[in-house]
C-alpha cells in the first residue's frame, strides 16, 4: 500500500462506522426513555430509587456481584428465564433508565437477580404464616413499591432465636427475653408489640410490622414452601428473599444452601459483644456460623445498603412494550404456588402456558 492518506482515512472510517452504528444511533433510538404511567399519571414506573439503593449498587459493583449474577430476563420465546420464575415478563430497556451503572451481567454462576426484590414476601400479607409462603408470587409484589420501609433491614428484630433465650443484659432496665420469645416462636399472627417494647431500643411501628413475620416465620413456612424454586427452605431461617434472609445468605451462604459456591461476605458484617440488649438487626444464625454466647453479628451500613438494593430490584411492573407472560393482571391473581417438588411448573397457576420456542 502506498500513501498514508487512504490508510488513515480507512482506519478512521471503519472505526467511525462502528462507533456511530453501535453507540450513537442506539443512543438516539433508546437513549432518552421516560418512565411510563397510566392514564391518570399516578402509577409511574420506573421510579428513581432511594439513596440506600444507590449506595447498595456501588457495593454491588465493588464486590463484583455482577461477575456471577445477571439482571435480565430474556423473552419466553428465546429462553427459559420466565419459566424459572426469574420474572413474569422480559426485561425492557425502560426497566433500567435510572440504573447507573447497569448490571446486565454476562454470567449465571448465581441466579438472575432482575426480580429478586419482587420475589420477597410482601410485607403486608406476611403476618399470616401462609402469606409468607408464596415467595415466588411476583404478582403480589406489583402493588408494593419497595422503598425505604422495606429497605431498612429490620429482620430478626425483637425475637431472639429460640435457642438463645438467655440474653444476658444484666444491667439493662427491662430484660425482655423469657417473656417475648415464646410469643414470637409460637407464630401467633400478631404478637402483642408492647411485649417487646424494651428500654431504649424500641423499634418503630414500621419495623414492628416487618419484625413480626421475621420472627414468626422460622417455624411456620417450612412446610408451606414446597414450590420454592431454590433452595429448599430449611427450618430456622427467615422467609426466603426477605431482607433478613439476604443478610443470613450474604453472611453464610452455605448455611442456607449447602452446595452454594457463593463467597461469604463476612467483611460486610460486624461480630461484636452484645452490649446490654441484642440489637434489632442482628442476624439469625444457626449452627457453626452462629456467634458465641453473648456475641451477635450485625450488618454494616454497606451490607444494609446492599440488601436494600437487592430488595429494590423489581421488574414485575407491567410495561406496554413488554407484556406479562400469560397476561396475568397481576394484583388480582393469587399466585398459589404449585405444590410439587423442587421443580417449578410453568408460570403461575391458571395462566395459559406460553408458547415456548
Amino acid at each position, binding site marked *: *500500500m502506498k500513501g498514508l492518506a487512504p490508510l488513515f482515512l480507512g482506519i478512521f472510517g471503519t472505526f467511525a462506522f462502528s462507533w456511530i452504528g453501535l453507540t450513537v444511533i442506539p443512543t438516539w433510538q433508546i437513549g432518552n426513555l421516560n418512565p411510563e404511567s397510566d392514564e391518570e399519571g399516578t402509577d409511574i414506573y420506573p421510579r428513581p430509587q432511594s439513596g440506600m439503593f444507590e449506595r447498595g449498587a456501588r457495593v454491588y459493583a465493588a464486590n463484583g456481584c455482577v461477575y456471577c449474577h445477571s439482571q435480565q430476563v430474556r423473552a419466553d420465546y428465546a429462553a427459559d428465564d420466565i419459566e424459572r420464575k426469574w420474572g413474569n415478563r422480559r426485561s425492557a430497556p425502560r426497566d433500567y433508565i435510572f440504573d447507573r451503572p447497569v448490571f446486565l451481567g454476562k454470567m449465571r454462576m448465581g441466579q438472575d437477580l432482575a426480580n429478586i426484590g419482587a420475589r420477597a414476601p410482601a410485607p403486608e400479607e406476611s403476618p399470616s404464616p401462609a402469606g409468607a409462603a408464596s415467595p415466588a408470587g411476583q404478582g403480589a409484589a406489583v402493588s408494593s413499591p419497595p422503598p425505604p420501609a422495606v429497605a431498612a433491614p429490620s429482620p430478626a428484630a425483637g425475637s431472639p432465636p429460640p435457642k438463645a433465650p438467655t440474653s444476658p443484659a444484666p444491667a439493662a432496665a427491662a430484660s425482655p427475653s423469657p417473656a417475648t420469645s415464646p410469643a414470637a416462636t409460637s407464630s401467633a399472627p400478631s404478637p402483642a408489640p408492647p411485649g417487646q417494647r424494651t428500654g431504649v431500643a424500641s423499634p418503630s411501628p414500621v419495623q414492628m410490622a416487618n419484625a413480626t413475620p421475621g420472627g414468626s416465620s422460622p417455624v411456620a413456612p417450612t412446610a408451606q414452601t414446597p414450590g420454592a424454586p431454590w433452595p429448599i427452605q430449611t427450618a430456622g431461617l427467615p422467609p426466603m428473599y426477605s431482607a433478613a434472609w439476604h443478610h443470613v445468605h450474604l453472611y453464610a451462604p452455605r448455611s442456607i444452601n449447602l452446595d452454594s459456591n457463593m463467597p461469604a461476605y463476612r467483611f460486610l458484617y460486624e461480630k461484636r459483644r452484645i452490649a446490654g440488649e441484642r440489637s434489632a438487626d442482628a442476624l439469625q444464625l444457626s449452627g457453626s456460623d452462629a456467634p458465641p454466647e453473648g456475641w451477635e453479628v450485625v450488618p454494616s451500613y454497606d451490607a444494609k445498603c446492599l440488601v436494600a438494593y437487592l430488595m429494590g430490584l423489581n421488574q414485575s411492573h407491567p410495561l406496554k412494550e413488554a407484556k406479562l407472560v400469560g397476561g396475568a393482571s397481576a394484583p388480582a391473581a393469587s399466585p398459589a404456588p404449585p405444590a410439587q417438588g423442587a421443580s417449578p411448573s410453568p408460570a403461575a397457576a391458571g395462566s395459559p402456558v406460553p408458547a415456548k420456542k
Partner: protein
Amino acid sequence: MNATGIPLKEPAVSAAAGDMEQLERAYIDASTRVPVLMFYTSAIAWLILGTLLAGFVSWKLHSPDLLGDISFLTWGRVRPAHMNVMVYGWASMAGMGTAIWLMARLCRTTLRFPLLLVAGAAFWNVGVLIGVGAILLGDSTGFQWLEFPRYVSVILFIAYTLMASWAVLMFRHRRGDQIYITQWYLLGAFLWFPWLYAAGQLMLFVVPVQGVLQSAVGWWYANNLLFLWFGAIALGTAYYMIPKVIGRPVYSYHLATIGFWSYALFSSWTGMTRLVDGPFPAWMITASIAATILTMIPVATVGLNHHMTMQGYFPLMRYSPTLRFTVFGAMSYTVFSVIGVLISLRSIASYVNFTEASIAYSHLGLYAFFTMVIFGSMYYIVPRLVGREWRYASLIKLHFWASAYGVGLMTLMLLAGGFLQGGNLENPALPFNESIETALPYLRGRSLAGILLTVSHFIFAYHFGLMLLGLGRTSTVPTFLNPVEAETSGGH
C-alpha cells in the same frame, strides 16, 4: 526480504559486518533497547501477578471459603483485578513493546527520544498499579474491562499520549515509500485505541448514556479492545515474524489487503454478540451477529495467506521458537473466530450466553491467539536487544508445551463445562443449582490447566530474567529448539 540465505533467522549482529543492512538493523535495535526492554520487563512482572490472581480466581470458584473473609481477596474483587492486570498490565505493555520494535524496524529509522517512551511506560505502570489497588479496595466501576476508576484512566491516557507520540515521530522519519502490512495493523491499533478508550470513558463516566446503553457501550469497548487493539497488534506481529523467520515473502499482498480492511470493518461491529436476547433493539444484536459471521472473511484470507507463506516450511517449527509460538497463535486466531461465530448464533447463545463458554472465548482470544504470538515475538526480539541468545532450549520447549497444553485444556474445560451448564440452565425442570454442580468438575479441571500455565509463566520469567542479566549464550547462532542438522547450521 531476507537475503542472507539463512533458513531460520539472521544473527543479531553479523560478525562479518560488511552487510550494510545488517549494520543498520543493529543500530535500530540498539536504539529501541531501553524502552522495549522496559515494556517487556513490566509486562512479564504483570503476567506473573496476573497469573497468581488467576489461580486465586479459579480456585475460589469451586472452593469459595478459601480466604473469603478478607475483603480485598473476595472473589468478586480478585476476578476484575486479574482481568485488568492481564489486559492493561501484561497484554497492553507486551503488545506495545513488540509494536515499538516492529515500527522502528519497518520504518527503518532509529527510535528518537526513547526517554519519552520510558516515561510513558512508567506512567502506565503507575496507572495500572493504582487501578488494581483501587479494584481490590472496592473502588471498581463495575464495567467489564473498564473497572479502573476514573482518575486512573486519566493517568493511563497521559501515558498513552506519551507513547503514541513516538509513532508519529517515527512515521515522519520513515525511509522508503512502501508501508508494509504489519504497519497497517500497528498504525490501526495505535489510532484505534485512544479513540476507543476515550469513547468508552466519555460515554460511561463523563456523560453517561442512559440505562442499558451503558452495557452496550461497555461490550462494544471490550470487544473492540480485543479485536482492534490486541488482535491488530497480534496479526501485525504474525505478518512480520512468519515471513521473517522462514525467509520468504508473504504469499499475497492482495489477500493481505482484503484481510486487513474486512477485519477493520467487520470485527469492530461484533460487540453486541455478548448481549444476545438482552433488552436491546433486535437490530443491534442481529447486526453484530452478522458482523461476527462476516469476520470469517478476514479469518479465511489471513489464514490462507499465512498458510501459503508457510507452505513447505512447516518443518521449521521444529527448530525456531519464534515460529512455533507465532504459528500456534495464528492458528488460534482461526479457532477463536470460529468459536466466536458459534457462540454468538442465537440458537446457541441462548444456551451458553451466561456460562463459562464466554470465558473460554476470551481466553482463546487473549491467550491462545494474542499472548502466544507475543511470546513468539519476544523470543525473536529480546536476543537482538541484549546481544545474547536464549540460554536453554529445554526451557523454551517447556514453556511452549506448558502454555499450549494449558490454554488448550483450559478452553476445552470451559467450553465443555459451559455448554453443559447452559444446557441445564435452559432446562427449568432442573433446579438452578444443578447447572452449577454440572460445571464444577470442569472448573476444577480449569484449575489444573491454570497450574500448567503458572509453571509456563514462571519458566519464561526466569529465562527472561537470565537474558536481562546478560546470562544468555554468547553466540551468533540463535537458540534452536532441536539441534539443527549439519547442512543448515554449517554456514556460519
